[in-house]
């Protein structure tokens, strides 16, 4: 949500708002890149601030997981409501940077440029993240802290720095997603993050918490399920489909499709 506002904001500053005509190809590319940078910085910074202000003091005090959840809810409320007050709870429109033209057409199936762009961007991010976590030194540190913080510390890994890094990465990914969202959905609302957050959680659980590739699979599965559900029942029921899927997964296969790498859903 922060990311969407950041991107739309900078585009507005640069002279493109929701009433502008679609810019030319190179302008669009430039704008999208600028939007990405700004959104990523905004989201990442927000994530880091929340980590430092809200979670780190709890970690220092050995708070149980429930305390983190409550604080997370509080932080989410603060951020979304602040934006809500500043936007008077109205949505802010985004410029249409990518023309709604088709790239390919197979019979009745239209594949739009925008969708290809988004999928491409998503794939790049997924591969990048997967490589980072599994094949770099910092990624090893992340996995070590995730599996056993104390042992990781004994091996010389700075736990706090790793956690900050993880939040930063999360924020980065969210920033990219924000730009995609702004381009696709076309607006920003103060509460747009909430539903997406729940869906993100559902996707992660679906694939198996702590399992990166599981999360990818989960996201894909969730997207498919929601859209099919939307076709069957109507688009307003999409989120309901997501929730019901979450409950079903937690009841019948709490370890997720690919199995959990960490933690357990069952008490």
């Amino acid at each position, binding site marked *: 949500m922060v990311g969407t506002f950041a991107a739309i904001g900078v585009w507005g500053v640069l002279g493109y708002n929701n009433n502008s005509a679609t810019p030319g190809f190179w302008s669009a590319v430039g704008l999208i890149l600028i939007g990405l940078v700004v959104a990523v910085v905004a989201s990442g910074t927000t994530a880091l601030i929340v980590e430092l*202000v*809200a979670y780190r*003091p*709890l970690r220092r*005090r*050995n*708070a*149980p*997981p*429930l*305390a*983190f*959840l*409550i*604080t997370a*809810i*509080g*932080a*989410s*409320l*603060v951020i979304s*409501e*602040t934006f*809500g*007050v*500043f936007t*008077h709870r109205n949505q802010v429109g985004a410029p249409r940077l990518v023309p709604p033209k088709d790239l390919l057409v197979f019979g009745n199936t239209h594949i739009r440029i925008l969708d290809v762009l988004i999928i491409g961007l998503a794939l790049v991010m997924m591969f990048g993240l997967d490589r980072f976590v599994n094949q770099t030194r910092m990624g090893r540190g992340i996995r070590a802290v995730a599996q056993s913080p104390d042992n990781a510390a004994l091996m010389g890994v700075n736990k706090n720095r790793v956690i900050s890094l993880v939040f930063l990465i999360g924020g980065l990914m969210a920033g990219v997603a924000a730009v995609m969202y702004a381009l696709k959905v076309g607006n920003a609302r103060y509460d747009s993050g*909430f*539903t997406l957050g*729940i869906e993100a*959680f559902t996707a992660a*659980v679906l694939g198996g918490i702590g399992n990166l590739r599981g999360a990818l699979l989960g996201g894909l599965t969730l997207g498919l399920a929601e859209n099919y559900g939307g076709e069957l029942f*109507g688009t*307003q*029921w999409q*989120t*309901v489909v*997501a*929730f*019901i899927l*979450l*409950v079903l997964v*937690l*009841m019948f296969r*709490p370890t997720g499709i690919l199995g959990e790498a960490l*933690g*357990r*859903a*069952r*008490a």
Partner: protein
Amino acid sequence: MTTIDKPPVETPTAPATPQGPLGRFRQFTGSARRWWKDLPWWGRLIGNVVIFGLAALLPYAGQIPLIGPQIITTGIDWNSSLFVMTYYVLLALGLNVVVGYAGMLDLGYVGFFAIGAYTVALFTSSDSLFHMQWSWLAAVPFGFVISMIFGVILGWPTLRLRGDYLAIVTLGFAEIIRITANSTPNFLRGDRGFGSLPHPPGSWSDGTKIFGVRDAKPYFWLGLVAIVLVILAVRNLDRSRVGRSWLAIREDEEAAEIMGVRTVKYKLWAFAIGALVGGLGGVIFVGYQGFMNSSTFVLQFSILVLAAVVLGGSGNIPGAILGGALITYIPDRLRGISDPITHTDLYQWRFVLFGLLIIIVMIFRPQGLIPSRRRAMELKDRAREVAPQ
């Protein structure tokens, strides 16, 4: 039999008393509590009646010389504000049962409030597709029952889940209700809502209705009575095997079950009772409003009620009351004042305010303003416990 006792693993609980005003305050509250506990039962009864009497007189607080006008809300009718306080306190009490007694974090508590309200609306409003048009009083029991049923429906699949997963699912539940409300234009009627909702029955001797549209005082008193009933009920449960079971479940669920506690049954009951109280709030709310729609039941309200419980002190009744009162009183008191930057009424900032307070309270005083005698939800530093788990 002689046992050579090792020195206790734990030193006695009283924290080192800091000097200065904070220390003296703590000593004062500590001794006040002990004095209260040592009273004979009838002494406490008289004390409670006095407190109730004072609460009932709150609508007249504006008449206290000097400070009266400062206390009461200016941006909104004081009696209306008091009424809102009662159903928020009710919600806080209900959530307290679920969170504080059974240790289950319910982030979608407003869902039960909505169910109670919608049930009554469906049975009584002329806009409802059922066209039953019952009186408020006749519809109320159904509001209770259906809330409880949904409490069990939500509780049953989520019982085995770990705390944070449970919370997310409860969040989803409330959202499903809101989405359903917005997506069923004939059933729950979205933001068109339900109009001509009836009020509770009763007339004064001269024929005027007690629960009219102009004076909120009778509603406040009705809410107060509901609060007292809920407090009595919760207290009765707390001081019985039910309360013991809940506490045992919260302290160590597996050990409790091994000691014979039917954990599933008691957790479900906690959910059901929490749902019932939420539904009670909804039912009273509908009796007051002439009209209601889906915009009332947004997620932020669940979080606000959670903030009330966390802020006031979870796991104890005075804490829930204090929390519920604060989250309504403070924003209402600040109505009419706008912030200089966006020129929004400060009332609209209440979510930001309480979100911040949640964060701060979780860091610095997770047990809340009125800490429970039992360290509810184990939110504090867990380094010192009976034995490593």
